[in-house]
């Protein structure tokens, strides 16, 4: 479980996140949705500690993350996996080295154990033949899959994904969504995903939070979202021409 209470964040005097309180549930894919620029990335980075909130507290399973010292935070970070919007793979390292890096830095595993773990994680994301490639040689979908493999290599308890299928075609998006959903279920991880993709919401949105101009505007499940009585949310949900037509037909 991850919980934030009344967090706010400003940049140069401009409020980007305003008084947000949410509880994200264990073993579920929790979605943060909203238009681009609404503050999703800032919210996610504040939750993981890459930004410090101006106000409010963040809890990881009863540990108050915001009150921890820098060194204690490092311990929590080892339980966190994160998939960044662009993948954020280390350019100068191969796929294999990218996934292996956390093991090199933080475990005392033997060479064979590390190799086995990396092989397993890469096969888990269906990428068993790309070990020696560099990030610049990968397609968008492959980059996301390597990023997932790197995020789960340390067996995280919390998984954060910033727009995991932005820039991907619809089919690949579904593959990535299902991968993240499957991993969440398999290991009982608390997963938080930023997205503006309604497909993802309908497919894997077990809990959905709608952010509008830096505020929490609505929360519910993917079943409730279609019947929500909230004009801004409806504009977002039924933004595509196809969805509008389908709704009129209903």
């Amino acid at each position: 479980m991850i919980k934030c209470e009344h967090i706010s964040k400003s940049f140069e005097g401009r409020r980007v996140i305003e008084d947000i309180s949410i509880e994200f549930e264990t073993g579920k894919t929790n979605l943060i949705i909203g238009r681009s620029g609404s503050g999703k990335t800032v919210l996610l980075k504040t939750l993981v500690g890459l930004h410090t909130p101006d106000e409010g507290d963040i809890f990881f399973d009863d540990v108050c993350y915001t009150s921890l010292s820098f060194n204690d935070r490092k311990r929590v970070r080892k339980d966190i996996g994160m998939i960044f919007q662009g993948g954020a793979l280390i350019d100068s390292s191969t796929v294999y080295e990218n996934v292996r890096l956390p093991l090199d830095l933080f475990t005392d595993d033997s060479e064979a154990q590390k190799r086995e773990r990396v092989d397993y994680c890469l096969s888990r994301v269906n990428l068993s033949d790309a070990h020696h490639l560099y990030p610049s040689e990968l397609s968008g979908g492959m980059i996301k899959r390597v990023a997932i493999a790197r995020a789960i290599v340390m067996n995280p308890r919390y998984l954060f994904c910033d727009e995991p299928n932005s820039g991907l075609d619809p089919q690949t998006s579904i593959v990535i969504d299902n991968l993240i959903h499957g991993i969440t279920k398999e290991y009982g991880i608390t997963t938080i995903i930023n997205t503006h993709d309604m497909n993802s919401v309908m497919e894997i949105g077990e809990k959905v939070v709608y952010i509008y101009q830096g505020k929490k505007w609505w929360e519910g499940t993917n079943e409730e979202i279609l019947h929500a009585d909230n004009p801004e949310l409806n504009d977002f949900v039924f933004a595509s021409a196809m969805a509008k037509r389908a709704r009129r037909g209903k």
Partner: protein
Amino acid sequence: MGKVFSRPEKMGIYRRRVIFEIEALGLNSIGLTAIISVFIGAAITLQMSISLESPFIPQYLIGYATRETMTLEFSSTVVALILAGKVGSNIASEIGTMRITEQIDALEIMGVNSASYLILPKIIATVFFFPFLTLLTIMIGIIGGYTIAWTTGIMSPDDYIEGLLYDFVLWEVIYSLIKIAVFAFIITSISAFYGYYAKGSSLEVGRASTRAVVVSSITILIFNLILTQLLLT
């Protein structure tokens, strides 16, 4: 700065990164510095032989002047300015790109102290390796002078060598090695700083890298005066 020098996570990884950076920042600079040195050494010898063309001035002074110029100023200060352009912009744009593509955030999330992980190996590699570039520069520059003396016949190679050995002070070489080590630190830390705090788009990375080169060059020139005052007088 404190973040850069905090205790590294695992020594083995740092050792590997230092070796990698020695290759990337040091070995890869040998070609450029060698080419420039050989031509500058030849040019100095040529210029000296033209301006010192007088029966009252012994020829060997040309070799002496070439050696002194190469050792005292060219091999450290000018080489450092060249390296600020090559290595400094490389460091700033590499780290700046890592910043804006969230690679630094990714390291932080893993629990890595990204400043120390990325910057410390570069500082160690350059402070350790750039002095070799200085020694190389002195030697190649002197060879360049010898070659021009020998091929054009503007002076006798024997006189040139006599000049090279005339009044040789080892301290001048050490002075240059100290200078380049300090300059290496200046180039790497300033460039890394501008990269690390880059924000926004790839345009900003370009600007950060230009600023890194300008600021490290000016800092080098100022420290050149300070170090000369401290070490030579």
